[in-house]
């Protein structure tokens, strides 16, 4: 198929669970993984007569997400009921926002091979999560767990501005980084606290109207986003090129087979009978509150990366690695401040050593007992040439595991470099005296024997010689 003729149109809808301690309309805990139905009350069980009361913290988090993505915050927004039947939806309707959402008209900048691209965000609205149904594969009764019912969500609806599966994955990553930086979401796709649906259509290059689109569900990793969209794009182009018509429908991505399957078509789509939620007053947020939240926003990943490049002289790549986690970025900046020397050196050590040491731990950089101050002390030992790079790495591994002071590890393990010129001169003399043949060859021009003398001298010095001083001593002694 002639893919170059076709343009891919993708828009993502992301549901992100807000990290509030309690649910959106009651005081129940939002903790993940508790005993089924243990975190419920008359309100989230939809007992007859119960009523929702909005959790103010949820609104604050949603405003933060809106401001972090450049949205306008509507001072007046309303909740609506979305009516449908499902056992995990205890009221028979979901409380969401429909006509008037809390946030509108935002944007997110992503990197593409052609440079930066701005992707529009249509709206961010508040809603409640549903519970969870579990079905018995053996055909026994299905079970409903309502612990998740009423967990606060924001739905972030993106404009159909994405033109490839790579851009979609890039957008999703950038969006996740932002909500995680904002502290409103944990960014966990696998556990479903950050979920994505993709609206996908294709059209011939040059066409100005959109063709029928398909909504893809069940995309719970960055890899699946690319896979699902790529599969779907291929499928749609195939249909159009064979003279068919793509049906507007909802399709489910099957990660095992890497394909999408029809779920329901638009014709049989449900009529949700939205209407304003009479149990809640219109949501009114004051300008002062919005501005207060704006004042508390953290520096976001792109701004931070740009600053790391401009003020620390890092490469955009290194800056990107460091800001991928706010924790790491903060750690790095603390280490730079404590060290006071080359930020690039600090960056190298953080990226190549610290991140390698913690790469398998869930807590990330916090898992290391090495603190920014300790890395700074270690780098000072290196700057003062009291240790060499190999020694420094060995020390860091121990500091990482035990939290010991680098200088003490250096002493305890005898890793301090010999830079005393007398000791070095004695070792060099000994090596030269023991290897007259090599000395002759060196003098005759075989300069690469320097490495040999280096090795022998270091051996004499038990590996603790300052390499720079040893090299200089050998050269001087051999008359270079």
């Amino acid at each position, binding site marked *: 198929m002639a893919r170059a003729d076709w343009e891919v149109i993708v828009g993502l809808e992301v549901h992100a669970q807000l990290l509030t301690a309690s649910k959106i309309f009651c005081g129940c805990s939002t903790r993940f993984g508790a005993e089924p139905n243990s975190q419920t009350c008359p309100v989230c069980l939809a007992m007859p*007569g119960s*009523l*929702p009361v909005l959790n103010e913290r949820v609104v604050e988090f949603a405003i933060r997400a809106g401001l972090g993505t450049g949205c306008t915050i509507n001072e007046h927004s309303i909740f609506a009921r979305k*009516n449908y*039947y499902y056992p995990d939806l205890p009221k028979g309707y979901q409380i969401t926002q429909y006509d008037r959402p809390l946030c509108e008209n935002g944007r997110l900048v992503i990197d593409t091979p052609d440079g930066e691209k701005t992707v529009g965000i249509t709206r961010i609205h508040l809603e409640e999560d549903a519970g969870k149904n579990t079905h018995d594969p053996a055909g026994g009764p299905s079970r409903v767990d309502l612990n998740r019912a009423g967990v606060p969500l924001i739905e972030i609806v993106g404009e159909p501005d994405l033109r490839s599966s790579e851009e979609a994955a890039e957008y999703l990553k950038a969006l996740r980084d932002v909500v995680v930086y904002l502290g409103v979401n944990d960014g966990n796709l696998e556990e479903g606290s950050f979920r994505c649906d993709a609206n996908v259509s294709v059209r011939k290059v040059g066409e100005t109207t959109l063709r029928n689109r398909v909504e893809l569900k069940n995309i719970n990793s960055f890899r699946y986003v690319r896979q699902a969209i790529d599969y779907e794009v291929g499928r749609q182009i195939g249909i159009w090129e064979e003279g068919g018509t793509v049906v507007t429908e909802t399709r489910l991505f099957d990660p095992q087979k890497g394909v999408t399957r029809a779920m329901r078509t638009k014709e049989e789509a449900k009529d949700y*009978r*939205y*209407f304003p939620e*009479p149990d809640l007053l219109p949501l009114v947020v004051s300008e002062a509150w919005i501005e207060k939240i704006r004042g508390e926003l953290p520096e976001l990943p792109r701004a931070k990366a740009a600053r790391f490049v401009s003020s620390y002289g890092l490469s955009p790549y290194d800056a990107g690695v460091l800001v991928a986690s706010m924790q790491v970025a903060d750690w790095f900046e603390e280490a730079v401040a404590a060290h006071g020397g080359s930020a690039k050196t600090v960056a190298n050590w953080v990226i190549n050593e610290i991140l390698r040491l913690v790469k398998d731990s869930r807590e990330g950089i916090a898992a290391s007992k090495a603190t920014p101050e300790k890395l700074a002390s270690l780098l000072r030992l290196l700057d003062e040439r009291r240790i060499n790079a190999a020694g420094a790495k060995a020390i860091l591994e121990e500091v990482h595991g035990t939290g010991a002071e680098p200088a003490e590890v250096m002493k305890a393990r005898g890793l301090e470099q010999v830079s005393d010129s007398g000791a070095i001169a004695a070792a060099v003399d000994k090596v030269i005296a023991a290897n007259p043949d090599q000395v002759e060859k060196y003098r005759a021009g075989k300069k690469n024997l320097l490495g040999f003398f280096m090795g022998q001298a270091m051996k004499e010095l038990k590996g603790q010689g300052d390499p720079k001083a040893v090299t200089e001593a050998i050269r001087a002694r051999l008359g270079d």
Partner: protein
Amino acid sequence: MNPIDLTLAQLSARLEAKELSSSEVTGACLDRIRATDQNLGAFLFVDETGAMAQAKAADERRAAGRSIGPLDGVPLALKDIFCTEGIPTTCGSKILEGFVPPYDSTHVRRLKDAGAVLLGKLNMDEFAMGSSNETSAYGPCRNPWDTTRTPGGSSGGSAAAVAARQCFGSLGTDTGGSIRQPAAFSGVTGIKPTYGRCSRYGVIAFASSLDQVGPFGRTAEDCALVLQAIAGKDPMDSTSLDAEVPDWAAGMKGASVKGMRLGVPKEYFVEGMDPDVEKAVREAMRLLEELGATLVPVELPHTEYGIATYYVVAPAECSSNLARFDGVRYGMSKREEGALREMYFRTRAEGFGPEVKRRIMIGTYALSSGYYDAFYLRAQKVRTLIKRDFDEAFRDVDAIVTPTTPDVAFELGERSEDPLRMYLADVFTLACNLAGLPGMSVPCGFSSGGLPIGLQILGKPLDEATLFRVGGAYQAATDWHTRAPRIG
């Protein structure tokens, strides 16, 4: 004198003076219920053990000098729409047969905190949808003045129980007239306060933007004493109003209508209304004039759209509110055969009665895509116009007086097959709900056939105080409210 013939206020004084004990009075109420309810059907559940224990506790508090207030030890009863922890709550529906709520409604909690003795749960139209108590899945409640007739609805049991001296006051709910209409039909006093004056937490929802809780009593003063205990902001209901709750009973002592301007809307005297009703209400108005009020003609031009508007908004909200009765978590669940859809269909087909189904269908239709603008949205606009009519009228008057209903209590079965005629029973009461205003019905006479007639008094938002003053002044000058039906 049998203590059950006392008003709540009189009983409260006797209890305070220790001339009567709560245990005695509660026992008398339970005797009365046993003697009369076979014929009446006001109660769906009588909590004899609980009531006697609460009475004993009230007596002990009083003996120890720790009495809580005017309701301490006073036997009351609740429409079966209020969730009561550990006590069955059916909402008059088969779908909630055997349902025992895990929590108390805010009103139940507040009445318990005030020391009231709760005798049991009262009959009602299924999910408060009806005007005659005939849609109850547990059989109709009957009018104590004539047991072949309806006590009104939907809070029929709440009105009949007070009229029949089974309790000293009761709670009902009013979505389109469900307190005032049965109060009128049963010859008792009832008030629907301003929307938001009372919490809705723990009241099984019919139409959220219209539902409001209120008391029934033998007098306006009795209603004031009960409303006092349950009104006020509730953190569990976002739509409850954070407004000061005045001492209504104190405010109506020696109240007079002198100098008050009372509006009389011509739209509330319609062709085809019962001439006995019109006569009694006109007579009541004349008396109010004699007592010093000025009658002022007012216009409520959008009154005629009230029923149409109401029968879009209320069913729309109910179609959504009743979705939770799905057989998954509580109440009836028909899951023996088939899969999920069959459980939904069978549970709801067997659990709901015809009137409830009718309204769910009307409401579902009104909210459907393509019809929403023409029905729901337009109804909300008309609702604004109706509210504006009242705002306009209240610039010139302190309260509005009207008949509560166009007719007296009709016979059981007379209208149950004719929904439209049934809906007309609420024609004078539902505009008040659409506008969110307080409204009261007080007995103002009897028909030639001996059936009670009610005078409706409508007030400004949050101005229940004026209603109590008008009702109190009227009752000080009349004795309609003191008459008792002969039953049992």
